[in-house]
């Protein structure tokens, strides 16, 4: 968890720096923020965790497509393989997930910027296998030995559905390259449980909880913007030229 705090600071510094660099008033046609295109990205947190944590293997790619000036259609999909070693339970979950939703950009960009401060929602779905590797039995006294017991309980092909509310930032740090960060609050809507035990982790959702159906998630990612088309090109260009002339 410590590295998460460090990465948060890192990303936020980028936001500061990126904003500071755009104080110039040079008009660039590409930066009228009227371009509509597809942005695809990859989750860095999952990549780093895969490399550093031997109990985890996963990746996530995301994409967003601009629908209107402020609304974006978003999709995320990925795969996770997580082994949880806890006091009483040692389990493994592997599966894939997909999340679909929309983001609203609440940030009013100055000319020349294409940053986002967004809020949005997602609908998530996952299909996964849940395996119990070993467990302990609660015994009241220590008269008899009580070692960890191995298990072969497993159920494949389980599914789960959830909804989430998301908020985050995407900042253009280099030409067409964005760096982003988001946090999400998730709630399980439907869940299939394995035979003989329970779900401990659901790919795309996170750790499950006995007490509530909620989970929190966060991600930081880098994405690349593929411009597809522009809207209202000529009118904006003329307006900008006029404004530039008046200023000078």
């Amino acid at each position, binding site marked *: 968890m410590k590295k998460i705090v460090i990465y948060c600071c890192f990303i936020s510094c980028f936001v500061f720096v990126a*904003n500071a660099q755009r104080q110039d008033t040079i008009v660039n046609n590409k930066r009228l923020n009227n371009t509509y295109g597809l942005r695809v990205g990859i989750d860095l947190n999952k990549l780093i965790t895969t490399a550093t944590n031997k109990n985890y293997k996963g990746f996530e790619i995301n994409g967003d497509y601009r629908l209107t000036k402020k609304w974006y259609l978003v999709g995320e999909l990925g795969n996770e393989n997580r082994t949880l070693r806890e006091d009483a339970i040692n389990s493994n979950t592997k599966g894939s997930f997909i999340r679909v939703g929309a983001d609203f950009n609440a940030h009013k960009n100055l000319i020349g910027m294409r940053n986002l401060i967004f809020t949005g929602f997602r609908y998530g779905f996952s299909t996964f296998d849940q395996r119990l590797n070993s467990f302990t039995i609660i015994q009241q006294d220590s008269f008899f030995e009580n070692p960890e017991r191995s298990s072969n309980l497993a159920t494949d092909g389980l599914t789960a559905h959830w909804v989430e509310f998301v908020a985050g930032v995407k900042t253009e740090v280099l030409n067409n390259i964005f760096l982003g960060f988001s946090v999400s609050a998730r709630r399980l809507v439907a869940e299939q449980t394995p035979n003989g035990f329970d779900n401990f982790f659901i790919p795309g959702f996170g750790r499950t909880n006995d007490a509530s159906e909620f989970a929190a998630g966060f991600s930081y990612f880098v994405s690349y913007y593929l411009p597809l088309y522009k809207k209202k090109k000529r009118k904006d260009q003329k307006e900008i030229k006029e404004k530039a002339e008046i200023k000078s």
Partner: protein
Amino acid sequence: MKKLFSFCNLFLVLLFALLANCQRDDICDTLDVTPRLIIGFIDEDPNNTDLLVKNVQSLAVQLIVDEENLDSEENRFLTEITTNQTTEQRSAPTVSRIILPLNTLSDEVTFSFTRNFGNEDESLIETETLKFSYTRNENFINRACGFQTTFDALEIERTTPEIWISRIEILNTTITDEEDRHLLLFH
């Protein structure tokens, strides 16, 4: 305005990271633990129609691992054995009820029951051995506690001839909790 936005952004991010760190640690506080066998000792007097309990004097219970040699060190005592400082006499508690843990690694366990344990008059010390056999079921509790074992199809076999326990009555062959006695031994 922009600086404020960025600052708020940074603050929220750090706040969330901090909150995310404070995950609720699941603590095991279930009442569904692996149950133990509860035995009551009853007066064998034919007039005792109400099944009143009768204390067993200095009852020592041993786990029998080595059946050949009952005094072997391997046959650990379940009950607490105290030694009187002055007389150097050993004794066990006098009880009318005892709780036995069952072995969760095996389908059977053998215990010996000795009354008048440590008595000066050795002819009063009487030992009987009972073998308990059962089937085990492992039930999931939750992620913090793990599993519990419950027992079923309890059977009792006398491995020594009848000495002081006159009758064995199983009240419940299924052991899932410690609410009531599962077994009565008459003497």
